[in-house]
């Protein structure tokens, strides 16, 4: 307890602890495997796109997007443009008003917090030391 007693003279440590706690509490708690797409969105004046894997895998197997539609399995490696989507490629294979909502519902996909970098977010157990 002697070590703790020295804390009494160190209010800075208390501040540090509070700051640390605040830092942790404001950390992102995105759902596991949420992907942010923002290679071009904000440059073009739109919010970043949030792609929720959980929502899509209830409805489609991985192979649909990652084999049939050609999305590479590395967040940030796909340059997805609205032109392609409107032409029926990438998201546009489903987001065409038939299988899923049409591209004119801009804000439903472009729903991300401004300033987020592209990449994979979330993690219930790990935030991973990987290269994301």
């Amino acid at each position, binding site marked *: 307890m002697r070590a*703790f007693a020295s*804390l*009494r003279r160190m209010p800075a440590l*208390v501040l540090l*602890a*509070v700051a*640390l*706690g*605040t830092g*942790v*509490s*404001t*950390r*992102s*708690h*995105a*759902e*596991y*495997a*949420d992907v*942010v797409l923002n290679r071009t969105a904000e440059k073009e004046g739109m*919010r970043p796109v*949030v792609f*929720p*894997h*959980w*929502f899509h*895998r*209830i*409805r*489609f*197997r*991985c*192979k*649909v997007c*990652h*084999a*049939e*539609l050609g999305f590479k*399995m*590395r*967040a940030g490696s796909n340059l997805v443009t609205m032109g392609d989507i409107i032409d029926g490629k990438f998201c546009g*294979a*489903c987001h065409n008003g038939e*299988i899923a909502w049409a591209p004119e519902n801009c*804000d*439903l996909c472009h*729903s*991300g*917090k401004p300033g987020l970098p592209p990449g*994979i*977010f979330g*993690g*219930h*157990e*790990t935030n*991973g*030391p*990987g290269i*994301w």
Partner: protein
Amino acid sequence: MPFRPTVLIALLFASMAPSTPHAGEWAKLAEDGVHDPNGPAIGLLQQPGDALPNLPGDTAGNQVHWIKALRTGVIQPRPSIDPAREDRRLDKDIYLDLYGSMPSVRFPHLAHTEWLDCTNCHDHLFLPKRGANNISMFLILQGQQCGVCHGAVAFPLTECSRCHSVPNNQAQRIVAAIEAEEAKRSAADGDKAATDSGSQSQPRVLDGKAKTK
């Protein structure tokens, strides 16, 4: 009032607690740190907490046991957009890491091909050839090999025993039996196999023997 370090520690934990989702809880979109809480999509998009509690539970990732969800038919995700596209499956277990300090790995092709296509892993991530892939946890933790999905979208890398699931001696016996069977078959094929280049491209049953030497 005397200062109590326990109060400080309690405060620290309390400040961490409220926004950290606990088991059986899913963050609300407006509070998840990736959605713009002031954007028009909030209120229109489905919340994870509305969909995921209805699926078979798990302790990691989305807290959903996705394979169980698929196999029990609770979810029926489409295998393709083009109905003519072949939904390829392979029911073949691969045993890896037979002599490591961890239990051996059983890789089930079936569970993987229920979700994925062969081309998602072959050949750019894994050569379909025994011993040709230097699989390492270091690379996996860097997001390579299995780590392209595990740790990102498939169950995370904290779940060691889901892959390292077979005692080494048991895996060694299984592999020895399969190898003996293969040797017998190739001996029976004899001269035919020697000139048949097609046999080279058959899927190999085993992998991960590289560490034995």
